[in-house]
């Protein structure tokens, strides 16, 4: 029956295939470059920062950008560029960790809930309802106060509130996929539940989450700022973009540079994640070659 069968094509490493397809997209490359620059500058911040980021200099306070201070200074005369570079270390870590943490829990809860349905779904969803009923910021403040300061605790405090969003998005997506016959077909070839979820359900339902993640990162950075604003989370004189942005509020009319620079950086992070996320979603879809 197999007439004129030609040789089978060679199988390629799946990871490399996706990577190749990802970098065929200009937007993904642009996003990756932005992210790379931001990351490198954060890593090497102590080396490239022109000033000590905590050094006060009352004489030079509230200066606009100049050759001496490329991004100007803040209300205490601290060099903004140095603070931005150092702040990146913290803010990037917060943004990424919050997304990673809430994503892991969101995916676990969402998968269980969407795949098994019934009482499992009910239990998880009611629990998330309760968490969701508390305003996100209030929850973060509560947890942060309870757990105390420190990086890990801040991440935990900020993440708990956003697990709900990821879990629900994934659950809805899974419930759609679960009805497909290939899921049932997987069960008839004796695939275990874990296997069905990992290799059949998740790959087909994860796409809506990717976009949500890219937004979640910016939210994480900004919420961290709100926490430190009320004295929880990271404490001055440590630098952090979110805190710098909210601290610039009182000076926005006369010294806009104080807000503009951290604002641009946060926007760049979001943009780069978004570009990569969009391209990643397409690169993972075999239908879009």
């Amino acid at each position, binding site marked *: *029956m197999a007439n004129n069968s030609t040789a089978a*094509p060679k*199988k390629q490493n799946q990871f490399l295939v996706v990577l190749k397809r990802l970098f065929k997209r200009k937007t993904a490359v642009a996003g990756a470059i932005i992210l790379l620059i931001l990351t490198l500058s954060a890593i090497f911040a102590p080396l490239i920062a022109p000033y000590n980021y905590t050094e006060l200099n009352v004489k030079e306070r509230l200066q606009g950008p100049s050759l001496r201070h490329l991004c100007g200074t803040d209300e205490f005369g601290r060099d903004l560029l140095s603070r931005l570079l150092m702040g990146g270390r913290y803010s990037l870590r917060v943004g990424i960790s919050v997304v990673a943490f809430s994503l892991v829990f969101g995916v676990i809860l969402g998968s269980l809930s969407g795949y098994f349905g019934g009482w499992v779904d009910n239990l998880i969803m009611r629990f998330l309802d309760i968490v969701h009923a508390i305003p996100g910021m209030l929850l973060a403040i509560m947890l942060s106060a309870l757990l105390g300061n420190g990086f890990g605790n801040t991440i935990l405090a900020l993440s708990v509130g956003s697990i709900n969003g990821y879990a629900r998005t994934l659950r809805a997506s899974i419930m759609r996929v679960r009805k497909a016959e*290939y899921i049932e077909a997987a069960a008839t070839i*004796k695939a275990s539940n874990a296997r069905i979820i990992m290799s059949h359900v998740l790959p087909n339902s994860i796409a809506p989450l990717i976009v949500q993640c890219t937004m979640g990162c910016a939210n994480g950075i900004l919420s961290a700022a709100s926490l430190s604003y009320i004295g929880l989370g990271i404490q001055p004189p440590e630098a952090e973009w979110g805190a710098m942005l909210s601290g610039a509020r009182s000076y926005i009319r006369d010294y806009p540079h104080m807000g503009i620079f951290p604002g641009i950086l946060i926007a760049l992070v979001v943009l780069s994640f978004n570009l990569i996320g969009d391209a990643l979603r397409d690169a993972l879809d075999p239908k879009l070659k």
Partner: protein
Amino acid sequence: MALIEVKELKTYFKVARGTVHAVDGVTFKIEEGKTMGVVGESGCGKTTLGRTIIHLEESTDGQIFYDGKDITRLRRKELNDYRDKLQIIFQDPYSSLNPRKTVEDTIQEALYLSKRFDKSQLAGEVTKLMNMVGIDQRLRLSYPHELDGGRRQRVVIARTLAMHPKFIVCDEPVSALDVSIQAQVLNLLQDLQEELGLTYMFITHDLSVVRHISDDICVMYLGQLVETSPSKELFKHPYHPYTEALLSSIPSTDIHHKRERILLKGEITSPIDPEPGCRFAARCPYATEACKQPQKLEEVEPNHFVSCCRIHEIRGI
């Protein structure tokens, strides 16, 4: 001995408005290596019947035997022992393949899970199966969306065969395909049956297909088995009034022998909490008071069973 036997099988579903009697007391046997066709219109329970036999739905009552062993109630581990042997080919080859898996991945996963081969043998077995179902090797790394319906259905068949099944429920396997492709897949299924000694339960609404492929036929109406008989006998002597109407409704390509068509009145009634008695009575031209009693399957000719209390009066047998 029959490979598959069901006795008084019932599958009910609870829904908001009551209980759906999807399969309501069905009894039949399928001999090894034979094909049992199950026909009926949408909502008659034919798909649920097939799914119940291979344990994709839980039966409410009655018994299922495989090779003489009662497999009606199985624990998870026992079920796994039968999973390989009892397989299904779904209707829609567009939704029964994972869109993110290549042809090779799909077939290989099933081979791997069947635990019949070493890892090193898998690639070679995939090649064998692809040749067996007639998929060109160059499509090995293709994704489902790159294949047409006929080829997808071949991939589905290959995945099913990877489990080394004995009994396959074919749930409308060709109704989503074009006529010429349909015939290619039917031929393939027949070849495989001969080659591997498979036993089929072939579920379809297409009566000409079912006549072509089946040795025996069950006709279902609203969850009940109304008639079962060897295939040719059924087409020659459709005794039950519903079978008769059903057969006369098929548009025939024979333009010189116009048949008398029996047009049924009304629509199929709801399978939710039905009245006891013959479900077809509401549309049956011969219905009387007696039809409101529960009906019994009766052997009117050798191997030809009909469930109708008035059959002797109507057909004069």
